């Protein structure tokens, strides 16, 4: 499988920033500081289970919707 990391990153950025462009940048920097750089992941990126686990944990913590 591929592309799920980008999908999870997009979920976090979109739902935490609520369309606020400055917040989008802030959320991305927070992810980079957690060791996950959004620019490194595309729709073709392999689904690394370790990275996906970290992102899923954040999604649960932030109570975001993945539907």
């Amino acid at each position, binding site marked *: 499988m591929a592309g799920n990391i980008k999908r999870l990153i997009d979920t976090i950025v979109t739902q*935490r920033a609520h369309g*606020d462009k400055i917040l989008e940048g*802030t959320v991305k*920097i927070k992810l*980079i*500081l*957690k*060791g996950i750089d959004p620019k490194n992941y595309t729709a073709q990126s392999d689904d690394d289970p370790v990275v996906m686990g970290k992102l899923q944990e954040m999604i649960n913590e*932030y109570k975001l919707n993945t539907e």
Partner: protein
Amino acid sequence: MNIKTAFSVESDIREAVADIRQQLGGFEAKMLVFFASSIFDPERAARLMGNAFPDAVTFGCSTAGEIVSGRMLNHSVVVMAFSRDSLNGVKVEVLENITTGNPVDKAFDAFEQHFQTPPAAMDRKKYLGILLIDGLSGAEERVIDRIGDLTNINFVGGSAGDDLKFSATHVYANGKSYTNAAVLAVLEPAGPFSFIKTQSFSPLPQKLLVTKVNEAKREILEFNHKPAAIAYAEAVGTSVADAPNRFMSNPVGLVFEGDPYVLSPQRIMGDSMHFCCGVKEGMELNLLESTDIIADTKKALEAARSELAGISGIITFNCILRTMELEQKGQSDKYGELFAGIPTIGFSTYGEQFIGHLNQTAVMIAFH
């Protein structure tokens, strides 16, 4: 916004507080932020400031040098007082035992109760946060990371200093002094505000990918799958032995949309490198080269002044490494003068907080 500053260079803290009280006259402060040199006994400094302004929320920390409108100081106390009508609300919480515990969530419960708004829903244009933290705790990354998980409002601040003694640093709140602790303040200013992050570095093309790290020790073992010290020295174009001489002018940084978040090397131990802030495996860093602190800061202040259509007050958190560079270059007075005419207080920090924990950066809150 009705903001007033004061400072004292009296060597006795009792006299310094009396001096400040006299300068502030009958100003009715709702909140008072102060930064005090580590020459002052921390317990007395906190208690006397709290006693002198019993109707105000008081908080602050120890420093490695102070800044006040137009001047860089040493061995002083600097104060910024906010009038009752300048703040719609303020709530201060102390986080204790930050090296082992996770007290951030409890503080945010208190913020939610006080402001009657869940922290995750707080509007970043309405609220701001200040973080003052024990500068020798090594806990900054964990605290700011957790804050970032809980809210979208900006928390900025600095790591308390102790005039380069590296013995003990203190944070102060409502008449008490704390170590192994942090002070969090959430403010709801009555007027607009903005943030300044300025660092005098530009990214170089040399990339250093963090491939092996000891996060707990802020130690990078490998860059680009090579021993970190060797890879850094190669990137800079010098020997490992000479590499520490380049740390000040060639730190590394996370570069996001052209803007560097500076991470400063501290020392080389064997083949590995210790940093002044935490680094994660997988981070892609750029080598940075220094630019002109005076020109860059001036430009940043002008941009903020233009954005806010005037500034009535600045709180600045200025890295001790910047202060040392300014001293070495004989530019301290010139730097202080950049803030002339603007009510300003600040201090030389052991690290700056802006989204993450940074180095060699000046972070500021500018109030309209």
